[in-house]
């Protein structure tokens, strides 16, 4: 998949711009605060009709303007799609159109293979369990609207159940009050756990391979899924998970009442990165931790390329964070994507040598919400 054309109207700090792209690498250069991330936000918005930074629609509108409007052409599954996304501040109305037709459910999102890489992702290994869970959910939700739906229902149920537990009414009615929610925790929770287990085991296989190839390290990398069933979950079907879950949730009832919140379920899961069999969060160097994340990103890109089609890869600010050696390994990943958007503040020699090898690349210079210059390195000239 790639983006062929993008026009922005009143989007973040862009008043009006129209840009043509080609497959390959698109380098977005500019000083801090000029609009590089905002351009990536627009690219993401075109594919998913929502913000990747979870910004509110009203925050996407250029200050003091009444609306924003994005229009673009995507190449996906051997076809071109004309996509329009916009938001009207006064009417508080969001519109999303595909090939001129208004869609209430933005189905295109399910088919768009997009992987993005943000500076905070680099710290995934050393951050808290909540951030790792959020990462996992973000990535899976992006390709599965069913998963996103299960997750939002599940979270609602946990929120409702926690309210009952918080009130701490110790009478014999309490079980009757809790069970209708537990039943749904088990139903939605088992499906969430099952999906996470499936996704993690595919990530795991490729990521381990990538780690050994990219970093030629003798330590073996492994991602472990921590959940109430342990490793058994990898071989279990949904029914089996449901059965175990419904048995175990009864056992924690007393403890939950005492503590005042839900103790069992996917909202407590985590993932552990192991390097050479040891928890990377506790024992690996900062650089090794980041390498593990790069290996994981590579796996995600490869999975898309294997399954449907080569993905779009968005990297914001990641390169400035990496040393020469990891930068070079990261460049290797770019080859597996159909189109790459990457932002930098300054060009450097390492990047130059990569761009020379790249089959096709274009270069945008961003200043104060304007695209100042565009040129490409030849084979596929981009004109604005």
């Amino acid at each position: 998949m790639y983006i062929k054309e993008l026009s922005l109207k009143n989007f973040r700090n862009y008043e009006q711009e129209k840009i043509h792209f080609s497959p390959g690498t698109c380098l977005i250069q500019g000083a801090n605060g000029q609009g590089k991330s905002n351009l990536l936000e627009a690219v993401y918005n075109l594919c998913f009709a929502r913000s990747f930074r979870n910004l509110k629609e009203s925050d996407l509108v250029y200050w003091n303007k009444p609306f924003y409007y994005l229009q673009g052409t995507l190449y996906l599954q051997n076809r071109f799609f004309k996509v329009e996304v916009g938001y009207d501040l006064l009417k508080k109305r969001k519109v999303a159109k595909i090939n001129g037709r208004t869609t209430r459910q933005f189905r295109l999102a399910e088919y768009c293979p997009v992987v993005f890489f943000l500076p905070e992702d680099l710290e995934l290994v050393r951050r808290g369990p909540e951030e790792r869970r959020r990462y996992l959910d973000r990535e899976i939700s992006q390709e599965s609207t069913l998963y996103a739906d299960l997750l939002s229902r599940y979270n609602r149920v946990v929120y409702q159940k926690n309210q009952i537990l918080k009130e701490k009414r110790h009478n014999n009615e309490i079980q009757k009050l809790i069970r209708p929610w537990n039943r749904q925790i088990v139903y939605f929770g088992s499906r969430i756990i099952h999906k996470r287990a499936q996704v993690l085991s595919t990530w795991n296989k490729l990521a381990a391979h990538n780690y050994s190839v990219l970093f030629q390290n003798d330590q073996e990398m492994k991602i472990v899924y921590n959940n109430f069933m342990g490793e058994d979950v990898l071989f279990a079907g949904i029914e089996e998970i449901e059965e175990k879950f419904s048995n175990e949730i009864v056992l924690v009832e007393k403890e939950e009442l005492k503590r005042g919140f839900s103790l069992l379920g996917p909202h407590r899961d985590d993932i552990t990165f192991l390097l050479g069999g040891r928890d990377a969060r506790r024992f690996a160097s900062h650089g090794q931790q980041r390498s593990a994340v790069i290996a994981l990103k590579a796996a995600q890109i490869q999975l898309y390329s294997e399954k449907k089609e080569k993905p779009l890869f968005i990297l914001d600010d990641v390169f400035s964070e990496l040393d020469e050696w990891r930068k070079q390994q990261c460049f290797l990943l770019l080859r597996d994507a159909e189109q790459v958007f990457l932002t930098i503040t300054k060009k450097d020699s390492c990047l130059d040598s990569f761009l020379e090898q790249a089959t096709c690349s274009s270069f945008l210079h961003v200043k104060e919400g304007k695209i100042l210059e565009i040129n490409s390195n030849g084979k596929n000239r981009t004109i604005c």
Partner: protein
Amino acid sequence: MLFSPAITRLVEAFRRLPGIGPKTALRLAFFVLSMENEEVEEMSRALVEARRRVKHCSRCRNLTEQELCSICRDSRRDNSLLCIVQEPRDILVIEKSAQFKGQYFVLHGALSPVEGIGPDELKIPVLLELLKKGEVKEVIIATNPNVEGDATAYYIAGAVRPLGIRITRIGFGLPVGGDLEYADELTISRALEGRREI
């Protein structure tokens, strides 16, 4: 204050209605001021009287001006079937499909601990008293297909099961996350046909 106190008060009154924002409230207020005196008086009488006269049916908690609502008074209806709904408007939707010939019970909501709505607020004890009379042979739970509606269905099923009454659930055939109100008649009749035991 831009407008006189009386206008402000009227605007505030309209704003309390669901789906009415400040702009619409202002438009409605100005419209009322342009109406004939008698018209406005008739309108305010309609409001006051509806509020005073309409109450919950003592049997099914549907809205009515009498002790029993028209459905409960209708002798042609099948008293052995009882359909439990969240809102009075759900009855309208099911009645339009003309598939269901039994009686109803209206909960006026769904279980929602965070909003302080428990079984007592939904008058589930009243429902159980009704069922203990023994006339009802099958209960159909038609709460909304969302997490609160499902929790309510499971809770009622748990409470009714000891009475040995058959319990079925509709709502699965309806659009996911949608409310009964928006379902078309065809989906309702299909859902009624395909009701499932829980």
